[in-house]
């Protein structure tokens, strides 16, 4: 037991690897939120009137809403007037090559291990790097545009493809959907837009690295991905944030639309934001609304997430399966340590016939953390022959943590088959013993078992992400024994 404790302590005291602050002058809005701020953001970005109106409508609706309180997480009350809603690194000018990027900014990226030029030269990943709120550099854009793929920052998309934005913005996640989407819709600063035309299989993984930088700035991103008939895209989202003492709010919105027949969108997230220190001070509030809709016949949306960071994670990447034969998938690993809290899961809304969904959720709780799975599977009246399989497992490490499961299954069609199963367990002493007997150290044994436990989800990640995810997991939990 003493040994376990020691190892647990070691992990607990591990410093956040990405805790540094880059000193880039920001061009920020005054603190607080009002109609003027919404107008300020819109004006700053030279937005058309329809978008300003859309923002204002969302803002006015937000004023009438109350912050939800049903979740199984606790956090200090957020003062929405105490947040800077816009901060852009300046000067913002059109960059022709990587050399023009602020050297300090590039150094920041290098510390994160995603140096742009490195990426550009060696890997096949196009990175739309988002530092705080404005897209700083976009690579591989030209290459993609040859195929007709649009991959750009949200503000560029508003300028260059207003018709697409106008058609799809808010079509899956309406501005009025919930408290945080309304807030996001009113003040969103930037994000990514991605459009895959008919018949195109996107040749590379598209990727955005989010990074919250200036203190007290909320991150309000919007991601919109539209896939036409017979197209395919795999999108990666990776996140790290520097160390901060005050809690920071991140309320992003992600909308995926698989429009045509056989359209496929794969969305992978590795989230490693600052989780707060070992006493639970600081850390990011990650309140994100992610939703995808399968409109086309036999279209598919797949969410994969590895959540290791954030003080509070509260999100439910969801699929609306409207097209007949459409498929929704959700694979998740959520790790909480120290005082971290996670309330995450998914919603699978079956509307079309012969729709299928799979949910695999693996929760790992250590330290004094709480980890909840909350998921909804709804089989509508019209969803003939719908099929769902859900599995949510929890692994507990230490006796101070908690694991919770709240699955909702609503079935209104007799031809549907819905299955849900969940288990909660710890790493067995017999398993550890087995590994140790074969010459593995205690730590390696735990790593092996935890990685095996998460394998099903990691297998869904693109290669480079899978490696990063395994490393993250090792850092988060190295040596913890339940």
């Amino acid at each position: 037991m003493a040994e376990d404790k020691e190892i647990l302590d070691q992990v607990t005291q591990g410093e956040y690897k990405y805790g540094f602050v880059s000193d880039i002058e920001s061009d920020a809005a005054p603190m607080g939120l009002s109609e003027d701020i919404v107008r300020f953001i819109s004006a700053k970005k030279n937005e058309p009137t329809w978008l300003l109106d859309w923002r204002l409508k969302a803002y006015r609706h937000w004023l009438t809403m109350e912050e939800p309180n049903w979740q199984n997480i606790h956090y200090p009350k957020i003062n929405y007037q105490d947040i800077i809603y816009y901060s852009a690194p300046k000067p913002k000018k059109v960059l022709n090559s990587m050399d023009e990027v602020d050297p300090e900014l590039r150094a920041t990226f290098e510390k994160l291990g995603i140096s742009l030029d490195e990426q550009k030269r060696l890997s096949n990943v196009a990175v739309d790097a988002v530092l705080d709120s404005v897209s700083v550099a976009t690579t591989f854009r030209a290459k993609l545009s040859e195929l007709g793929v649009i991959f750009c920052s949200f503000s560029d998309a508003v300028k260059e493809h207003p018709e697409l934005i106008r058609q799809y913005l808010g079509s899956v996640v309406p501005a009025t959907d919930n408290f945080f989407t309304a807030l996001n819709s009113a003040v969103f600063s930037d994000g990514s837009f991605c459009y895959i035309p008919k018949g195109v299989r996107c040749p590379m993984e598209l990727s955005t690295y989010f990074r919250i930088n200036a203190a007290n700035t909320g991150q309000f991103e919007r991601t919109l991905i539209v896939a036409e008939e017979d197209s395919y895209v795999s999108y990666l989202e990776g996140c790290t944030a520097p160390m901060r003492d005050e809690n920071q709010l991140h309320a992003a919105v992600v909308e995926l639309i698989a429009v045509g027949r056989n359209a496929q969108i794969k969305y992978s997230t590795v989230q490693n934001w600052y989780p707060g220190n070992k006493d639970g001070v600081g850390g990011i509030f990650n309140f994100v609304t992610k939703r995808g809709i399968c409109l086309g016949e036999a279209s598919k949306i797949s969410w994969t997430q590895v959540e290791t960071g954030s003080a509070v994670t509260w999100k439910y990447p969801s699929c609306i399966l409207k097209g007949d034969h459409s498929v929704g998938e959700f694979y998740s690993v959520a790790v909480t340590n120290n005082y971290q809290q996670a309330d995450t899961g998914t919603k699978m809304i079956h509307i079309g016939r012969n729709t299928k969904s799979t949910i695999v959720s693996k929760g790992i709780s250590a330290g004094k953390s709480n980890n909840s799975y909350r998921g909804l599977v709804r089989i509508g009246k019209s969803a003939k022959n719908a099929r769902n399989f859900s599995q949510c497992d929890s692994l507990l490490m230490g006796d101070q943590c908690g694991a919770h499961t709240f699955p909702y299954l609503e079935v209104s069609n007799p031809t549907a088959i819905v299955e849900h199963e969940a288990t909660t367990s710890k790493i067995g002493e017999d398993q550890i013993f087995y590994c140790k007997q074969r010459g593995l150290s205690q730590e390696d044994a735990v790593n092996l078992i935890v990685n095996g436990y998460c394998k099903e989800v990691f297998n869904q990640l693109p290669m480079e992400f899978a490696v990063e995810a395994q490393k993250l997991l090792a850092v988060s939990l190295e040596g913890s024994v339940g």
Partner: protein
Amino acid sequence: MIMEELTFENKLADLLKFDLEVENEYLRELRRESLKFFVAKGLPTRKEEEWKYSDTRRTFKYIANPKTAHYTENGLENGVSKYAVPGLDCYTVVLINGVYAASHANLSGLPKGALICGLDEAFRDYSGHIEDYYARQSSHAENAFTDLNTAAATSGLFVYLENGVKVDKPLHIVQLFNGNKESFAYPRNLFVVGDKSSLAVVETQHHFGASDGINIIAISEITLMDEASMQYYLLEESENSSLVQATYADIGRNAHFDTNTITINSAWVRNDLEICLNDEHSEAHLNGLFLATGEQHIDNHTMVDHRLPHCNSNQLYKGVLNGKSSGVFNGKIFVQRDAQKTNAYQSSKNILLSEDAVMNTKPQLEIFADDVKCSHGTTTGQLDEEALFYLRARGIGEHQARVLLLTAYAQEVLEKIQIDAFRTYLTKKIEHQLPR
């Protein structure tokens, strides 16, 4: 502000107001308090998480002139023997609209140390025995129906077993109701089972006389002391009725509680089971089966709280839904920080037979201890086409094959009933009830 018409809650409270003067001080205070809580809280709405799928408003609130169903013998001229379970050798007690009917009880030969009587009698003659247990588990924080029953129940059933009393035959509780859609009955049972004592209970519900549906707000409170054991089988089949049944059980060291809730006829049912495994090595088995058709709504809520190490719990709930019926299963397992070495299992399986039937399930786990084995599973689907084909290929008609499969499906729950005569009785009833 304009004075609105009296709320439903106030109307009910008015009915009870004149009734609150009882001799026993503890009970008097308790009932007054509970009534206050009930009115303040009001009936739960669908906005409350625990009532998300069951609309109490539609069921109760539109009753314009609620009234209390009182004790009556009209329609019971031929006695109560026809409510007996065939072939069941048992002690029998009868409650009419929730009031203990001493004249109909058959308790001859009851072992020494076993006390079975009406709650009013118990408060008068055995107040020392009862006050430590009555309404100690059903707390105000939970739901308004519990408060309503506590405020309204006048004379339910009291069963008290001293240490080491093994009741040799099952106790059959016959709950008889006579009323209409506007009347409310408040049955209440209190079981106290002493150290090393054991008891088996069968409870059935019936209508008599000119009765057409009734609203039943019922509570059973159970305390099992160390090494006690109890089987509690409840058959809910009062036609056209709305039923809210809460069962609270407090289980001691090495004690064993086994319950089975079978719901077939009632129109609108909400069952709440709250089981606390309060000491080491205690064990609870919760089983349930419901058959719903027409516009029936059947909601089973369970909560098992593991408080100390080495406790086991097991749940199996099955449902068959036909017509426009709707079903709910909401199971919760709590494993508290100290409850290491817990084994908890929960399973909910449901079959939808028609286009319009709906099943909502929500099996929850909340776990704060690490050395535990907890799992739950839930499925919703239809009869296995292949099994059906297999039977038909062997010359069994489709209808017959369906009945056979459904009977087998139900059997998994029924076979857990350890009283042979009652199990046979139920099996027949269920076969008869299965959708044709």
